[in-house]
C-alpha cells in the first residue's frame, strides 16, 4: 500500500515534466514574438484551478497567434526597474515591452529602442484609431517614432463623499490630506515617484494656484500653462527636496499608512476613506464599492458610492506604452501593436484591465456610452435635475468609421455620476491642461530623491526604541564586565577543615 502511494506521488510530481517534454517535441517552427508586459495587463480568460479556462474574457494573445500563425512568448514583470534590468542583462531577449512614461524616456535617451517603420507611422491601425489627444502629446514630446501608448490616466484622490460635509472642498487641494481632521483615514502610495509628486504639489501649492489663476484669466495660454506646471512638478533642486521631505514627514504622521496594492480593498471595505490613486485603480475601486444587484440571490447588495477628484493645483498624467528593444522583430511587433489597437480589442482590454486605453474609435465610444450614459440630452436624473454632458470630443474626434460624427462625443450623466468612474476613466480637458508628465530623473538626482524617501519611510524613531537599545547595550556591558571580573578572580582558597584529595 505504502509503495503504491509513493508511486502515485512520484507520478504526480513527474507528470508535468513529462508533459512539458512531450509538448516541446510537438512545437513546429513558427515565427516567435516575445512580449514582456506588466502582470495582468492584457485581456485573458480566467484560469480555473483544474487547468481549464473560463469563457469570460477574450484571449487576445491566443487570437493573435491564430490569426497570424505565430507563437507568442508572453512574460510579465512587476516593476519598471526589474524590466529595465532584465533588458540590460539579456539584450535582445524581447521584441516588445511595455514600460511606463519615465522609463520610456530613459530607454529612448539611452538608445535602447528600435524606431517604428515609416509605413507604421503612416498607415497603421494604431495611427488610425489612437486618440488625437495622445498622438499630439507624443508628437509634442518627440516620442512618436519610438513608442506608442497603451494605457493612460491621471492621479487623484478616491474618497468617500460621506466622510465629512466639506470633504470635496478639502480634497480639491492636494494639501487636504494634511488636515488634522483626516488623521488615520488616508493612504498614499509606497512609491517614491508618486509620493514625491504629491509632496511637491503640496510644497508649491501657492505657485501652482497663481499659475492657474493666470491661465483662467487668459494671461497664459493652455500650452504655456501646461509647460509651467510641468516645470514646477519636475523640480529636483536641493531646497525642493528638503521641503518635500518635511512635508511628507508631516503627512506620514497624519496617514493611516502607505500601500502598494491593498488600498483598493481597504477602500472597498471601509478601512480607509481617502486613497491617493492612479485613475485606473480608482475606477476599479469605485466599481467594487458600489451597491449592486446580485443575480444569484436576486437581492440588492449594499455598498458605497465613492468619488474621484483631481485636485485644483495639478495632476500627473501617466501612461504605459509599447517600445521595441534593440534587435527586436520589428515587423511582427508592429503587427501585435496594430492588433491590440483595433477598437474592439481595446474594449476587450479595458473590460479586463479596467484602465483606459489610448485607443479611441467607434467600438470604444459605444462601450463607454453603454457603461456610463444615463439618458439623452434634456433627460432628468432621479432627483429631477437635468443630466450634464460629459465632453469626450477631445479624445474621440477623428477616429470614427462612420458611426459617430466629430463634435458629438458627449455622454449624458447625472451631476453626481460625473464625479465618479467616468471622471477617472477620461479626465476632462480642463484637468488635462494642468496635468504634468513626470520626467525621468538622472542617476544622481534619483539617488538624492531615494535618500529623501528612505528618510521619510525610516523616521522618526520612537523614544522607546532608544531605551530598548540602551538597556540591551547596558546589559551586554554588565555581562562582559562580569566575565572579566570572574576571569581575574583567583581560585578560591580551600576552607578550613576541607581536605584536598591526595593520592
Amino acid at each position, binding site marked *: 500500500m505504502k509503495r503504491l502511494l509513493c508511486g502515485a506521488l512520484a507520478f504526480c510530481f513527474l507528470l508535468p515534466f513529462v508533459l512539458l517534454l512531450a509538448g516541446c517535441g510537438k512545437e513546429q517552427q513558427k515565427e516567435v514574438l516575445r512580449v514582456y508586459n506588466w502582470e495582468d495587463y492584457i485581456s485573458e480568460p480566467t484560469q480555473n484551478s483544474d487547468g481549464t479556462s473560463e469563457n469570460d474574457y477574450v484571449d487576445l494573445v491566443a487570437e493573435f497567434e491564430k490569426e497570424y500563425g505565430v507563437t507568442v512568448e508572453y512574460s510579465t514583470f*512587476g*516593476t519598471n*526597474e*526589474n524590466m*529595465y*534590468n532584465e533588458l540590460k542583462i539579456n539584450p535582445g531577449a524581447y521584441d516588445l515591452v511595455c514600460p511606463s512614461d519615465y522609463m520610456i524616456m530613459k530607454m529612448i535617451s539611452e538608445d535602447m529602442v528600435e524606431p517604428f517603420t515609416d509605413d507604421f507611422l503612416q498607415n497603421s491601425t494604431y495611427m488610425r484609431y489612437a486618440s488625437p489627444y495622445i498622438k499630439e502629446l507624443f508628437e509634442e514630446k518627440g516620442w512618436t517614432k519610438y513608442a506608442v501608448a497603451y494605457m493612460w490616466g491621471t492621479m487623484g484622490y478616491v474618497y468617500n463623499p460621506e466622510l465629512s460635509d466639506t470633504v470635496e472642498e478639502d480634497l480639491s487641494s492636494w494639501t487636504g490630506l494634511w488636515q488634522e481632521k483626516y488623521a*488615520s483615514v488616508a*493612504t498614499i502610495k*509606497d*512609491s*517614491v515617484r508618486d509620493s514625491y509628486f504629491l509632496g511637491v504639489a503640496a510644497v508649491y501649492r501657492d505657485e501652482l494656484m497663481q499659475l492657474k489663476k493666470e491661465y483662467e484669466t487668459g494671461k497664459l495660454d493652455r500650452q504655456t500653462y501646461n509647460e509651467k506646471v510641468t516645470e514646477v512638478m519636475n523640480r529636483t533642486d536641493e531646497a525642493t527636496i528638503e521641503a518635500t521631505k518635511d512635508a511628507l514627514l508631516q503627512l*506620514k504622521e497624519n*496617514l*493611516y*499608512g*502607505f*500601500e*502598494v496594492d*491593498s488600498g483598493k480593498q481597504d477602500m472597498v471595505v471601509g*478601512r480607509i476613506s481617502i486613497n491617493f490613486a492612479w485613475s485606473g485603480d480608482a475606477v476599479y475601486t469605485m466599481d467594487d464599492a458600489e451597491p449592486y444587484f446580485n443575480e444569484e440571490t436576486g437581492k440588492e447588495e449594499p455598498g458605497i458610492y465613492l468619488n474621484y477628484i483631481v485636485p485644483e493645483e495639478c495632476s500627473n498624467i501617466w501612461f504605459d506604452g509599447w517600445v521595441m528593444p534593440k534587435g527586436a522583430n520589428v515587423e511582427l511587433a508592429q503587427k501585435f501593436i496594430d492588433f491590440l489597437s483595433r477598437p474592439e480589442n481595446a474594449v476587450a482590454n479595458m473590460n479586463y484591465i479596467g484602465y483606459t486605453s489610448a485607443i479611441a474609435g467607434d467600438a470604444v465610444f459605444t462601450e463607454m456610452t453603454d457603461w456610463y450614459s444615463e439618458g439623452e440630452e434634456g433627460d432628468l436624473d432621479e432627483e429631477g435635475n437635468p443630466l450634464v454632458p460629459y465632453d469626450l470630443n477631445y479624445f474621440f474626434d477623428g477616429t470614427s468609421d462612420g458611426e459617430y460624427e466629430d463634435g458629438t462625443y458627449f455622454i449624458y450623466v447625472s451631476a453626481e455620476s460625473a464625479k465618479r468612474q467616468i471622471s477617472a476613466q477620461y479626465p476632462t480637458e480642463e484637468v488635462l491642461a494642468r496635468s504634468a508628465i513626470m520626467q525621468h530623473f538622472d542617476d544622481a538626482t*534619483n*539617488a538624492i530623491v*531615494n*535618500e529623501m524617501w*528612505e*528618510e521619510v*519611510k*525610516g*523616521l522618526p*524613531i*520612537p523614544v522607546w*526604541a*532608544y531605551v*530598548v*537599545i540602551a538597556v*540591551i547595550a547596558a546589559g551586554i556591558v554588565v555581562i562582559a564586565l562580569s566575565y572579566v571580573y570572574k576571569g581575574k578572580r583567583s581560585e578560591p582558597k580551600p576552607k578550613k577543615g576541607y581536605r584536598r584529595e591526595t593520592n
Partner: protein
Amino acid sequence: MQSLHFSRKQLCIPYALFLLLFVIIPMLLILFYAFTETVDGTIRFSFANFIGFFTSTAKLSTLLMSFTVAIISTAACLLIAYPVAYILARSKFRRKNVLLMIFILPMWINFVLRITALRELLDLIGLLGSQNYLNTIIGMVYDFLPFMILPLYTTLEKLDESYLEAAADLGGSKFTVFTKVTFPLSLPGVISGVTMVFMPSMTNYVVSDTLSNFNITILGKLIDQYFTAYDNWHMGSMISIILLVIIFLTMLATGGFKDGDREARGANLW
C-alpha cells in the same frame, strides 16, 4: 559488467559543486557588487556604498529600528516559548508529539497567507492602523514562535532527569533546580532558538509592511527597495553584506560556531 565504486572523494563532488554554485559564487557576486559602483555605464571599485551606509541618517535609523524590532520579538518569543517547551518536554502525556505538532502546524501554511489573515484579525481587534510597532512585533512572534519552541523542546526533552533528581536530593528547591540546573543545561537550545528568530526578524519585511501599513521600514525592506525600486544593486549588496557581518558577530558572541557537547549539537539541528 564492472560494478560501480565511488570513493569518498568522488561522492563529495556533487556537494562541492552545489556549494560552489549556490553558496560561494553568489557570495562573491554580492561582495563584488558591494564594493563597486556604476558610473556612466562602467563598473569600478569603490567604497562609496560602505561610506554611504554609515553616513546616511535613513539607513542608520533603519538599522536601529530593525535591531529594536528583532530584539523585542526575540525576547517575546523566548518568554512564550520556554514555558511551552518546558511543559511539553516534562509532561507525562503519552502523545506529546501531537501537542508539539499543534504548535508547529501553522508552519505548514503559507506564511504570507497567515500574515494576511493576521492583518484582518488585528483590524477586527482595532489595532491595525494605530499600533504599528506592536502589530509588527505580534506578527514576528506569531511567525517565528515554532523556530524557538523546537530547539528548546529538543534540549529540554533530552535533559537527563537524574540531574534534576540529584539537585533535588541535595536540597535544591524547585526554583533553585531550575535556575542552577535546568536553565543552564538548556542554554544551547536557547541560543539556537534566539539565532533562529533574531536574524529573520531583522529582515522579514512582509510582516512589517503588511501589519504596519508600510509605516515601519526594516533592513530587508531596504535591500528589496535597492534591488527592485531604486535599481542600485551595489547599495543593496552592501546592506546585505553589513547584515551578514552583524549576523556573523551575533553568532560569534552566542558561541554558535563552537563544536559543542552532545546536547548543543542536538539543539543546533534547527
